[in-house]
C-alpha cells in the first residue's frame, strides 16, 4: 500500500510545480469571485478555476492524496450547502420584495448590502464542488476499466 501511494501521480517535477501553483490558482479564483462586480469574471469562471486548483493537485499527486485533501463526500456536501444558500436567499428575498435581488433584498442589513456577493459566493461554491465531484468520479471509473476485464469480456462475446 505504501509503495503504491508513493508511485502514484506524476514525477517529481510535476509534483513540485503543482504544489507551488495550486495556492496561486486558488487565490486567483477567489479574487475573481470576490471582485466580480467591478472586473470581468464572476461566480462561474471563479468557481471553475477553484475546481481546477483541486484537479491539478489530484492529477499531480494521485487519486489518494487528492481524496485526502478534499474527499468526494465532503465536496458533494459543500455543493449542496451552496445550492441551499442560493435557494434560501432567493426565497427570502422573493417573500419580502416580490423581486429577486434587484434592489438589494436580503435577510439582514449586511446581506442586503452584499446580496450580489452572497449569490456569487454560493454560485462559485456550487460550481467548483460539483465539477470536482464529477472529475473524481470519472477518474475512478477510469481505474476500474483499466484492468482489462472488460476487453476480455468483449473479445469472448465477439
Amino acid at each position, binding site marked *: 500500500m505504501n509503495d503504491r501511494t508513493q508511485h502514484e501521480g506524476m514525477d517529481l517535477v510535476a509534483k513540485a510545480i503543482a504544489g507551488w501553483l495550486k495556492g496561486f490558482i486558488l487565490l486567483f479564483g477567489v479574487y475573481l469571485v470576490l471582485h466580480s462586480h*467591478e*472586473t*470581468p469574471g*464572476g461566480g*462561474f469562471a471563479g468557481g471553475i478555476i477553484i475546481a481546477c486548483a483541486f484537479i491539478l493537485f489530484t492529477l499531480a499527486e494521485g487519486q489518494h492524496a487528492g481524496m485526502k485533501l478534499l474527499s468526494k463526500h465532503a465536496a458533494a456536501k459543500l455543493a449542496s450547502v451552496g445550492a441551499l444558500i442560493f435557494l434560501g436567499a432567493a426565497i427570502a428575498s422573493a417573500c419580502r420584495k416580490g423581486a429577486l435581488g434587484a434592489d438589494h433584498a436580503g435577510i439582514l442589513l449586511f446581506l442586503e448590502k452584499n446580496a450580489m456577493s452572497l449569490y456569487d459566493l454560493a454560485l462559485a461554491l456550487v*460550481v467548483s464542488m460539483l465539477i470536482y465531484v*464529477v472529475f473524481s468520479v*470519472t477518474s475512478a*471509473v477510469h481505474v476500474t*476499466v483499466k484492468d482489462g476485464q*472488460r*476487453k476480455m*469480456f*468483449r473479445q469472448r*462475446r465477439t
Partner: protein
Amino acid sequence: MVYALCLVLIAIGLYGVVVKKNVVKIVISLAIIEYGINVLLVLIGYRSGGCAPILQQGMTAATLVANSVDPLPQALVLTAIMINLGMLILMVAICIRLYERYGTFDITEMRRLKG
C-alpha cells in the same frame, strides 16, 4: 458575411452529428454546434469599435450607453456556456457507460448487440 461563417460552423456540427458513427465524435459535433451558436449570439450584439460593458473610472452611464456593446446577449451566452458544460458532462458519462456495456464506441454495433 460573418453571420454566414457562423452558420457554416453550425452546419459542420450538424453534418458531424448526422453522419458520424463514433459516439465521442457525435459529442464533439454537438460541442461545435454550441460554439457556433454562442459566437452568433454575441456577434448580433456587437457594435463596431464598442467597448466592454463595464463602467470604468471617469465614465458616465450616458457614455456607456453610447459606446458599449449589447450586454444582454452576453449574459445569456454566459448562461448557455455553463449549461453546455453540464450537458457535456452528462453525455460523457453516458459514453463511458456505453463503452463499459458494449466494449465499443460504434453506435451501429450497439444497435446490433441490443437485447
